[in-house]
């Protein structure tokens, strides 16, 4: 490594050192409702599905009703590899939703947790209104402290897995989930989202 660094240093001896460009100007943050609408549109464009529920209770009922007879794995179960392989549906928390692209951001603590939204054929993310951010720069701004602090494993997921490697024909799924749903827990007017206390369970 030291030799490599030396070669790099030698190569750059006397080089002009252009400055870092400034950050792009950010548009003013849109309203919550606009973010929601934008996220939903982008998610659906990426072949994801959008659901809402008033609280976590209702969310569970909705998911169970959507996938009757399927083995549904919840993130708090701390599922093992065997569960992951047998489950039909994996339900994970979302940390952030990126409105511009319909992207779900999730940081995992363990290898198994990272596979909850990968192995089961259906991946569901539960999110709350305050998880909505307008765009990727904002999402990265919020993510950065976790990664600066130490080990962290984050995925940014946009729609179900896909491939276009054969004749550019878009095919869903590829190796990951064939379906991706985002279920938003709606905050009551002006209030905090229900289930707040269970966050990042």
């Amino acid at each position, binding site marked *: 490594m030291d030799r*490599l*660094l030396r*070669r*790099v240093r030698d*190569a*750059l001896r006397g*080089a*002009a*050192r*252009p*400055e*870092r*460009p*400034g*950050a*792009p100007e950010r548009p003013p943050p849109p309203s919550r409702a606009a973010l929601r609408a934008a996220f939903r549109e*982008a998610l659906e*464009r*990426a072949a994801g599905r959008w659901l809402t529920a008033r609280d976590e209770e209702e969310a569970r009922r909705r998911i169970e009703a959507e996938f009757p007879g399927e083995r549904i794995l919840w993130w708090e179960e701390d599922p093992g590899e065997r569960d992951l*392989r047998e489950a039909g549906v994996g339900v994970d928390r979302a940390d952030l939703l*990126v409105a*511009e*692209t*319909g992207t779900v951001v999730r940081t995992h603590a*363990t*290898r198994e947790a*990272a*596979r909850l939204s*990968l*192995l089961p054929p259906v991946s569901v993310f539960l999110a709350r209104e305050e998880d909505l951010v307008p765009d*990727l720069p904002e999402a*990265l*701004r919020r993510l*950065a402290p976790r*990664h*600066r602090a*130490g*080990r*962290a*494993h*984050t*995925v*940014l997921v*946009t*729609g*179900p*897995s896909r*491939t*276009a*490697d*054969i*004749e*550019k*024909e878009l*095919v869903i*799924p*590829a*190796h*990951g*989930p064939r379906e991706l749903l985002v279920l938003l827990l709606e905050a009551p007017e002006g209030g905090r989202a229900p289930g707040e206390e269970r966050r990042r369970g």
Partner: protein
Amino acid sequence: MGRASPFRRRARRALGNPVLARNVLRATDTSLAHRREVVAERPDWEDLRERAAALRRHTLARLDRYLREFAENARARGVQVHAARDARAAARLVSELARRKGATRILKAKSMATEEIELNAALARRGFRPLETDLGEYIVQLAGERPSHLTAPALHRSAEEIRDLFLREGVIREGTALPRDRRALARRLSLSARETLRSRLLEADLGVTGANFLVAETGTVVLVENEGNIRFTTTTPPVVVAVAGIDKVIPRLADLGILLPLLTRSATGQRAAAGVSLLSGGPGERHVVLLDNGRTRMLADPEDREILACIRCGACLNTCPVYRSVGGHAYGWIYPGPIGALLAPLLRGRGEDWELPFASTLCGACAEICPVKIPLHEHLLRLRARAARAGRRGIGERIGFRAFRFLAGREDRFRLAARLARRMEGPLLRLGLLAAWTAAREAPRMARPAFHEMRGDHGPAAS
């Protein structure tokens, strides 16, 4: 004309394959159309390009600092960071690791760096056969080929060819009813690969990936994908190694806010890739191999350094009229198209690689599309001059241009030469000596008189 050059020979072979010609053109057209659509949505596109270009140039000019920062931060997160001076050293590092771990099952994510170091061949010499998990890469692996595009390795193959390949290799069982319609077939084949590979994605000893970016401030390996195969490759095996060129380093996580949208929109015309993994350390044992392999040499030249700004989106291939006609294999190395015609001579530098800067019309479409604003055609021209200076173009060409300069240096000499050429034109054509032009085109005939020979109403005398 003498013996045709390696590029010309390979290009001829490609041009003689109508299936390939059709596939390449159709695939690149599709990518360009998708790109156009999503670029149009971003009114700040040009601003993003400017910033990305400035950011990349800034980073490369301070790569010593950022590279050290990356290594320190990755190590702080438990990652073992290795440096490899050349392809052989890098391949040895990875295959040594495989041997040490007794890794019989190796998953591989699509990566140009591992292609560059010919990792699969190195692993094969030690008896390892890794599984290429990206569908396109899997197809070229089965076919015993190399990728023909930076982001779509099998784009030169038709669905029918892939069907035959899958049948031959047992990916699909003989006798399976398959749709005839091309699009339905493509779909069916893609899904069958998913089924066949599934079990192998669930058990593995070692994962090998590349990296789209390495973030200095957090020691993060950034991987961009669509299929989910990279997430398997980085979470199934207990040990994962990422091989990445030192040019992949970016200063901060926030810089992804500029680079990721440029990359995915330019590469596949997607607003965002289906999966982006930010891996700052484990879970599990993590290695990063930082690959030099000619990059510090490029870094030392301020002009060559700019070429290292490339983020391997492949857009310059899609828009290049030459690439669109002959595909990637004609270039003779794993980096094709305009960027390949620069990287091959500068990184690998074989005699035949120095022909690639001449395999271009210098039309400039590449520079126009490049998300990090590398003036590719200007670099191609610059490398032509370097090749000429180094005498790589042959003594005949050098004398020829010197003679041309002598003739065109005075009008009387030039007129004399032009008249002679005009006299010879007929016989040369009749003897078929202008075949390089006339094999596919009618030759233009020289004007009698030429403009400057006119003395009269519209000629020089009337001025």
